[in-house]
């Protein structure tokens, strides 16, 4: 049976209390707003990408539960320096692990993101973990005008 302590790992508490790369990225050239209409949560992801769509810098801001804030925070750490294709592949791997389509051991590239794998036993919380990723995906797909995306 799923224990709630498997979901709320220490790393998640720590990132929730002290989110990394939090706030507006001054010289961003991409951004998107993500909504989770089920809970009213909203977060904005800011990106600075180079000519080849490689992520030079990334930040986020907004409100959310511990899972969504920690996921966004961890995401910003792993995304820096990643090419668009690498970012998309990470999203896919992360999504697959969260939805039990892939085992954590089969996705070593997730690195620290693996602490969020506990959501797979809490289906109602998967969207909390993936909101930031849906949002960054939308930001990478769009131009500077920005995009809106929802988990529904």
């Amino acid at each position, binding site marked *: 049976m799923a224990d709630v302590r498997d979901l709320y790992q220490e790393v998640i508490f720590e990132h929730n209390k002290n989110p990394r790369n939090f706030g507006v990225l001054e010289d961003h050239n991409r951004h998107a707003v993500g909504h989770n209409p089920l809970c*009213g*949560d909203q977060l904005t992801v800011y990106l600075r990408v180079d000519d080849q769509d490689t992520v030079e810098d990334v930040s986020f801001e907004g*409100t959310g*539960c*511990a899972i969504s804030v920690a996921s966004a925070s961890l995401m910003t750490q792993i995304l820096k320096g990643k090419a668009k294709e690498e970012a998309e592949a990470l999203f896919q791997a992360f999504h697959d692990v969260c939805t039990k389509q892939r085992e954590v051991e089969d996705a070593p590239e997730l690195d620290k993101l693996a602490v969020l794998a506990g959501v797979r036993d809490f289906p109602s919380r998967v969207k909390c973990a993936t909101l930031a990723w849906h949002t960054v995906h939308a930001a990478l797909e769009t131009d500077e005008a920005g995009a809106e995306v929802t988990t529904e």
Partner: protein
Amino acid sequence: MAVEEVGRPGKDLTDADARRLRADFPCLGQEVHGRPLIYLDSAATSQKPQAVIDAVSRFYETSYSNVHRGAHTLSERATDAYEGARARVAEFIGAGDSREIVFVRGATEAINLVASSLGRLQFGAGDEILLTEMEHHSNIVPWQLIAEQTGAVLKVVPINDNGELEMAHFEEQLSERTRMVAVGHVSNALGTINPLREIVARAHEMGAPVLVDGCQAAPRLEVDVAELDCDFYTFSGHKLYGPSGIGVLYGKRQWLEAMPPYQGGGEMIRRVTFEGTTYAPPPARFEAGTPHISGPVGLHAALDYVTGIGLEALFQHERELLDYATEAIREVPGVRLIGTAAEKAGILSFVLEGVHPHDIGTILDNQGIAVRTGHHCAQPVMDRFQVPATTRVSFGLYNTREDVDAFIQGLHQVREMLA
């Protein structure tokens, strides 16, 4: 358990009674995450007593057929059960005439029905629809839709920091252009009981009809539509210990007689030709198609069940639980109550500093405690109190002080983990 054995009308409902009644609800007998289920989400939907489950099963086993059609025995039995339920609903809410009771899917459909039909009948450009800041989305969006179609405009009565209507603003906003006042009886997000008599009296002085969303009131307090003098009253069966997919729209006869159909189809007609159709009188006019036949049967059993206990006793029981819980939760550091009206029903909404409601919900669930987290389909209320979401505890007839104790203990555990 037979319905007659349940009730002790006119008596108080004690925790011992509630524990006994809890045994009538099979779904509450289970464990969740290895702990006995503590269900504190009756405002979202209530659990069903065996009497309701049995009534629906028995109906399917012995009397099921289509209604108002065919001369055969089963059809007559089904029609009697269906129309008997309508008469029972009329009695339950104090309507003088069962033709004033329309069966719908739920309160949402009822409000859409009135907005669409009455809107087409009499809303025009510049006419005003007066709502309140504490309405559920289902008592906002249908009015926005008809306002877009007719050019009518929405006016909103604000609420104060306690979550009570600003009645001075209500007076100010009520005008000769007001074509509808739509208000909740009890707020699902705040628990506030609104001063309906005053609202109805003032609206009527201005010639405006009043629709009351009674979803949270009908399961919690005695409703008498004749005494309230409201023009429309609606509630959903599933919050009143009955089946989901069945709801009630009460409408004063003169309104229902005047209103055009909401949906077209079988059952709602008098005579159909390709040149034109004449419509059946209410309530059939508003019940197109084969209805949810077993729904009213289950609702009938649910009304018998709660009447057996007594609505007054039920209200007092939930009030006592609310007072007990309010006092206890105030001792928990970092808690801010959302909704502190003087007049409240058994709903307790709060935020906990530094902890998102979703995390509270998940951690409590892990202890077998079911609460609601989110915006409760009342985003304007969340905006008013500047919170993204709240955690909501809501009571039913089966809850006890022990449930409250377990919840408070759970909340302390949440704080240890997250705050």
